[in-house]
């Protein structure tokens, strides 16, 4: 018998398992749902972050959080909206952490929307314009136009009122218009 006479041991105190086998059942359920939703999660992270490696990291971070918070998922059939919220938060935090400089992107937009702009260049212009949006605006734009979610579904996933989603989308589109129009103006001057 080991006699412990130090409170150091107390840091090792853990909550005992309630039911035999609970841990393995939990892991099994998590693994199954994670596997089912991984591709979709990865694609959403790609759409928001525009970067493959960052999307992988964000998806992994989100699944780690989901595992840690597994007990709060009360209905496995609702895994997707529950997990989307975790994933979107992970992506948004990564957007926030990116060091960005306030730059004038009108030139970039103008080049991409020039007279001979190809479809690829159109996409580059839109991508550049999206990059000027705030993280919150980028998230709602991706959920609306990549995932094709309704306003209410977005609100549920973000935990904000539907009116706020509408407001963010409204302002995001307005800013995208402004960014693309600025590009058009620059192109005309040239």
């Amino acid at each position, binding site marked *: *018998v*080991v006699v*412990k*006479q*130090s*409170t*150091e*041991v*107390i840091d090792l*105190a*853990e*909550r*005992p*398992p*309630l039911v*035999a086998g609970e*841990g393995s059942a939990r*892991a099994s359920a*998590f*693994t199954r749902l*994670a596997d089912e939703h991984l591709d979709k999660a*990865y694609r959403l992270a*790609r759409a928001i972050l*525009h970067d493959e490696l960052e999307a992988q990291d964000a*998806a*992994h971070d989100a*699944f*780690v*959080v989901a*595992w*840690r*918070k597994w007990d*709060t*998922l*009360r209905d496995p059939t*609702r895994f997707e*909206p529950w997990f989307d919220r975790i994933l979107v938060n*992970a992506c948004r935090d990564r957007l*926030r*952490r990116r*060091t*960005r400089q*306030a730059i004038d992107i009108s030139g970039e937009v103008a080049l991409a929307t020039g007279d001979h702009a190809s*479809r690829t260049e*159109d*996409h580059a212009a839109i991508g550049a314009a999206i990059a000027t949006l705030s993280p919150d605006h980028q998230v709602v734009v991706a959920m*609306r*136009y*990549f995932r094709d979610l*309704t*306003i209410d*579904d977005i609100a*549920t996933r973000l935990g904000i*009122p*539907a*009116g*706020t989603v509408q407001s963010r989308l409204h302002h995001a*589109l307005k800013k995208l*218009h402004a960014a*693309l129009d600025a590009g058009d103006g620059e192109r005309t001057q040239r």
Partner: protein
Amino acid sequence: MNDRELEAGLRAFYRAQVSETETAPLSLRHDVAAIPAADSPRRRLRGRGRGLTLLAAAALLLVGGAVGSGILRLPWMAPKPSINLETSAEIQAFVLSSSERLAQLPPEAITTLDSHGFMDRIYIDGSGAVRIERYATADATEPTTSMLLSGNSFGRTLIVGPSKVWVEQDEAIGQDPRTYLRALSGLLVINNGSDCAMTQNDLDNGGTAAGWRSVGAASVAGRPAHHLACGGIDVWIDDETRLILRVLQPDSEDPGNPLAGGFGPIEVTQIAFGDQPQALFDFSPPNGVASMSLDAYDALCRPGQDTVAFLDYPPCSGTAPVAEASPTPRPTPTPSATPSAPSGPSDCTIAPTDDGAAGPWTWTPASRTQDWPAPVRPEPAGGASAAPIPPTYIDPSGDDGSNGRSCVDIRDVTANTNQVFFDLMSNPPHNVDPSKAWIAYGVVVDENRDGIPDWRYGIDDLPQIPGDGAAYHRAWRTDLHTGRTDYDAGPRIDHLLRGDPLGEVGDTQFGTNYPAALAAPNVLFRFLATFETTTGTGTEGARFDSPFYVWASEIVDGRVVATDFAPDTGWLIPMPGDTNPGGTYVAHADDRLRLTMTIPNGWTTDGRLMSPSHPDDENTGLEFRVVDQPSEWACDASGNGVKAQIGPTVDDLVSYLEGQPMIRISESTDVTVDGYRGKYVEYTTTLPDDNCHGPEWPLDTRQPGNVGFTQEWILDVNRVRLVIDGFAPKASDPVKAELTRIVDSISIGP
């Protein structure tokens, strides 16, 4: 490019960026599959300790679901602590005393609850012996596990095969058993930094307690306490006994948008001082649990190894000995000589009726398909009057016909043509079996406006489902003329947790929140959902525009013990959100502060944010916030989102704002709102709102874009820092005057 072209361009852009058939890299799939093995359930508690991951608001909501408004709404006039913590030395000494004085805890019974619904009961006797029992839910009557520390011995339940066994270990403890209490119960605090020491061990390991700061006085479970914070951990320590009463750690990874359903705080919900039954401290196995010697346990489950006191071990396979036929009866603890003030939910705890005989309305499984058995509100001959609902309808308190059933005492009602929701004086208890306490909330509608009720909508509690939270409920609608009831027998997930905005109930649909839910403290009935399509706005559900009243009721032992209607007479008419008639409005800055004010005609309201409805005023309004986190999202001079470290006082926040290079700020002046003192500043900027690539300029806010001018009232409300922002695209005397009039009308309460 018009909107439709832009939307089409965005869809094409995303399709080009990310193929619908793209799959995650194999390496990511492997990494995700390995997560459970790398982060097992045993480590989860430690992760939670380090990362109790919610911002205070959502965490409080969670616990609101678990234990109700005792946590959600702190007692307004908190008992004043006896000591002042002003200097850093005083704060450090106080924090360290929380571990130093564990061995001085008097005989008492302590109940703790965590956001997972686990409840611990801790008993301490006069010799310092400690018994800790863990329950799967707050309503469970038998503990799942038990442990006992007395003298130098330690005993606990462990799992062998499908059974529990009781294992005792002599000479296992070298210190007073009470010194282990915190670690072995849920009140474990993980050291979160070298300057956040809480124990002598932390100091011995080179740490300091210099990082602790005092947030202010508080009350937890009716006990005067000090709220202290360090390195993202918040603890509330009993002023007198120095016991940790609450632990909370916000998630630095998830600022500004907490996850509903995430980890919540651990909190003492009840303390009862006084001698406890001595039989609780006898080393004997719990009812139905066989005793097993330590040697036998080691031989079966840990061959070749020693069993270490305190450490938890996974279930081991094998055959447990059979329990004795007549186990030692478990004594009933004697409650307290000096019980603490009851928390919110205890106001609605189950209490039998006087004569003990069951009344006619006992819940049965068939009740899931039926209307609430008690009648609707009586109506006067000729029908009662109907009037547009004010921005918030305030219902009198204590009008539910009971003596303190606060969970069916409606506090205020808000509605528009999409939904109606209402607040209660406290939330109902967690996971209550309706056969014991049947608690329902609903809406009665006069569809044809003849003064006679036509429909009764309702939600009520369901029998407990092991492992589930209180969000599960059933929903129904009854035609009061024919008696036909359409129902969703449940379990029904709260609206805010649903992927769909509404849910089917027979041939109609509506969304609901049951107020014990994890996601929201309100009762909600949502009838109409709107969503955008590429061809315009779509809707789902039915417009809610008929006169209505709301109701709450509780049945115990087959009898109605409390019913509240709001209003008690007359009907309220929902108004579209943009045609509020003006009048009294209640906003919640967070779960601690309830702001009642008078708003002009036509203002739209959205909880913490409100604004005039006129399109020209799109970016004008008021926002209410509590700014009291150890660090707040803000924006640095380069336009990057950063976590700003701001001291706890009003002056600290003023100083922080004065240091922001992207705004031009006025000199602060003294101001008083509803008797609470603070500072008033105005600031302007010509920078675009996305200069910081987010709404976190200069502090995290929900204000819309194009805000160039801000009036800011920063108030000390009993040491809670309330910030009221009046915002507009530019400075304008009429707008300033209108916003100031609203702020001047504010009264602040819990």
